[in-house]
Structure formats: C-alpha cells, structure tokens
C-alpha cells in the first residue's frame, strides 16, 4: 500500500542553552539585513535601468500602489470575497480532513477500503479541477471554496491518521489494562497525543486554502484578489499586481501566526512529544 508521510511538525522555538540572547539578537539582525538587501536591490534595479519598470516596478512604486489601492472603495469588496473563500474553504477542509482521518483511524475496515482511494485522489494534481468547478459551481464564491476545500483537506486527513496511529503500544495496553472504553482511550490518550501532528497538517491546510481560492479566481471570477491580479496584469499595471501580492502574503502570514499562537497555547507540552 502506498505510504504518505505526515507533514513535518514545525520545529519548536525553544531557547537553546548553547545560544545566548546576544547571538539570538545577531541572527535576527542578519535576517533583517538580508530583507533590507533584497528591498534595496528591488528598489535600485528599475531605477538604474537594469530592468524595465513596466516589468518590475520599484519597491517604492509598489508601496505607493498599495496605499492607493487600500483607499479604493472597490478594494474592500474584493478583499472580503477572497478572505471569505479562504476562511470557509479552510474551515470546511479542516473539518472534512479531521472527520475522515478520525474515521479511518478508528475503523480499520474503512481504512482498508478507503485508504487506496484517498491516496489515489491525492496523486491527482487537483489544480486541473479548477475549470471543472467553475463549470459546475459557477463564477461565484462557491467554486473557489470547493477548490480550497479539495486541496486543503488532505494534509489534515493524513496527519490526523498518522497522529492517531502513532499512539505507543504501551499506552494502548495501559488503557486496556484499566478497562478504558474506546471512547475514553480516544479522548484521554489518542487525540491529545495526535494533536501536534494534526496541527502541523492544519497549518499546511491554511496555505493550501489560500492557493485554492486564488487559483479558482484566476480561472474564472468577476471579483476577488486573484481576479484583481489577472485584471492588473492584463492592464500592465504591474505595480498594482505586486500590491495585491503583498496583501495576499499578509493574509497568509496573519492566518499562520494566528494558528501558530493557538498551537502553542493548546500544545504546551510540545517539546516533550517525541521523547514519550
């Protein structure tokens, strides 16, 4: 049977005894330094005539476009549409991935039957469905939500399954020896044990939901940030294309940090999870 590994859990940011705060600060400065260098190169390249400003507008031009864009009335509508598609797609995708993952983990027969299908489905590059979904569900938000769901549920599913199945044999034996019911074992042992891995899958799902929504909008839409990217590209207003990309990146990063924060709140025992 084909095997798919779980999305790696994010390495934990613990304070290592070998790096002093000074060194940490130095690394942060390096990161910022590299970022500044990239921005500087971006700013200078069009100004020095190395690339045409039509192909690559300077950094300051992009910021300017961004500020103008944020002040437009129509912008909020497009922003809200895409954000809604992402959020609904992500929540549905996560819920579906969790449910199927749990079902396959607790019901071995279902896993035997359905797992090959799931793996086969994952082998399809699901982007190809985008035109189909537009045909089936129309130009509105629903086709984008479906796209987001279809590509985001899988990492949650597989990580839920892998996480629930990685419960140590001794822990199962312990629960059996005290006559715990399957539900008690699931709630008290399996689910919390799997949570770090499940969360890694959920974080990946968010990234996929963003991609799904945007791809859907590229293929056919009359509103949304992906639509704006297409529109501005065709109008050769590349500064605005970049401005929308900055906004999309902000949505992605914002969601990710929100999940990261939730993750740390919820899974406070994390740095311990692999040694047990």
């Amino acid at each position, binding site marked *: 049977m084909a095997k798919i590994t779980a999305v790696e859990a994010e390495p934990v940011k613990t304070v290592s005894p070998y790096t002093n705060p000074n060194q940490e600060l130095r690394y942060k400065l390096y990161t910022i330094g590299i970022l500044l260098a990239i921005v500087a190169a971006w700013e200078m390249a069009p100004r020095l005539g190395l690339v045409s400003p039509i192909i690559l507008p300077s950094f300051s031009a992009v910021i300017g476009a961004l500020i103008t864009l944020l002040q437009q009335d129509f912008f909020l509508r497009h922003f809200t549409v895409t954000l809604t598609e992402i959020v609904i797609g992500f929540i549905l995708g996560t819920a579906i991935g969790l449910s199927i993952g749990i079902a396959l983990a607790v019901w071995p027969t279902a896993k035997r039957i359905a797992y090959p299908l799931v793996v086969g489905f994952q082998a399809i590059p699901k982007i190809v469905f985008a035109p189909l979904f537009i045909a089936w569900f129309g130009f509105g938000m629903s086709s984008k939500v479906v796209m987001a769901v279809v590509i985001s549920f899988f990492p949650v599913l597989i990580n839920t399954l892998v996480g629930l199945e990685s419960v*140590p044999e001794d822990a199962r034996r312990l629960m059996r020896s*005290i006559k*715990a019911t399957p539900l008690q074992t699931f709630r008290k042992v399996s689910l919390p044990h799997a949570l770090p891995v499940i969360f890694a899958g959920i974080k990946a799902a968010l990234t996929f939901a963003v991609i799904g929504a945007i791809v859907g909008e590229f293929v056919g839409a009359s509103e949304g940030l992906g639509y704006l990217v297409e529109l501005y590209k065709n109008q050769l207003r590349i500064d605005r294309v970049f401005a929308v990309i900055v906004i999309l990146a902000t949505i992605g990063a914002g969601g990710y940090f929100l999940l990261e924060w939730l993750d740390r709140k919820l899974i406070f*025992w994390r740095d311990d999870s692999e040694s047990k």
Partner: protein
Amino acid sequence: MAAQTQKPAPLERAAQGVPIIEIEGLGKTFAIDTGPVVALESVDLTIRKGEFVSFVGPSGCGKSTLLNMVAGLLPASGGQAMLNGDVIEEPSRKVGFMFQTAVLLPWRTVEQNVLMPAEVFGTKNEATRQKARKVLEAVGLGDFTDAYPRQLSGGMQQRVSLARTLTYEPDVLLMDEPFGALDEFTREAMNLELMRITQAAGITVLFVTHNISEAVFMADRVVIMTPRPGKVSGVIDIDFPRPRVIEQMQSQKFTDLIFQVRGILGHGQDNSS
C-alpha cells in the same frame, strides 16, 4: 506507604497459603505466516496472596506473554489462569500492570496522571485525590504533584507510573521489566521501595526481569524460564528474611542461589528443588 489499606496485616510473605493466582496448563501459540510459534508451553503455577514472584529468563522465553495472559490482555491458546478462583478472560481492576516505560501523558501533571485511572473508573473524587497525594508522598514525589512528566528524571517518571497503579489499590501488581531502562543506582533504590510498599499493602507481585540477582534479591520465589519453546524450567524458593537489605546480596547463600538459577537457565531443564 502508610498502611491505611483494609488488606490483611503484612504477614510473613508467602507463609500464607491462600492462593490468589492459579495458572493451569496455560500456553500460548501464535499463528504467523511461517507457521505456529509456541511462545509459551503449558505452565502450571500457583501464586499465594502477598507473595513476590520473580520471573527470569532470556529474551523470547515468553515472560511478557505469560504476564499479558494473566492481565487478561491476551487470550490463552490452552489452559487457564484464575484470579481469586475466577477464570481470567478480560482485564481486571484488581490487577495493575506496569511496563518498562512509564507511559505518562505529557500534557497531564503528575497528579493528573496518577488520577487518570480514577477518571476512567468514574471514581475521581476528593477521597481518590487524597489517596493519590498520599501515594505520591510514599514514592517520594510529594513535592512534584504539579510537575509535568518532562520535568522529571526517568526514575521519577517510573515512580509516577508506580503511584498511578498503587492509587487504585490493586491486589496484584504485574511488572514487565519496570525498571529495566533505569540506571543501576536508581533501579536498586526503586527495588527496595517497591518491596517496602507492596509488602506493607499486602500486594501480590509478579515481577519480570532479565537480571538474575535482582530476581533473587526481591522474590519469595524465582520462576526460571527458557526459550524455544518458552517454558518454565524451574522454580526456586528464596527464604531470606524480610525486609530485605542489600547486605544479604553479599552472603554465600545468595551466591549459591544465583548459581542455582544460572544452572537451570543453562540446561533449560528442570533440576530445581
């Protein structure tokens, strides 16, 4: 542990004749792809209330298999094991099981880990909480009730595991190499503590180990097992007085007993008492 149990006062171990576990013709054969594997050939053994019985033998001689069947975690393929006269068919709350790893839940504090069985039994209340604290006190973890497992050493984690089992007051304690992963010093200390606590509470112990001197030092009887096929090759009575002290290990008698065990292990046949 404070001897506040309702169990009979700690009489001389093994002196009492009341059987608690009776094993009759108990065997296990696993069916695997390459054919049947005899993990354990017919075992007959009676263990008395409050007795401490060690099981030694090389890897693969069926020690874990035997313990799992007594725990009701594994069905026998022949014969039967009885607890207080009833055939064991499923796990019982009168029987506690301790494994080589502590199996603590890292998201629970020490006290919450110890109370986990009570939650499963539906008996978590102020009384069990008090009991848990008392037992943690007894295993030397009174100051660590709110610590998380990752903050504890390996030895302390096994103490928590022991406390978790003792808190629900089992009559029988099954231990499968419980301290095998610990260093020599910690293990010795844990062994002494285990003997003290289980003797005070009158708990019957079935203790699996690879370590011959540990087996002899702790037990009222040592059951010697040999592999291929797994079977009991001999049983030796150990009549050192209790409480046991480390000095007993330096006596000639102790050395003789070790040799006796080694002899049986070496020949794989019954030449014991």
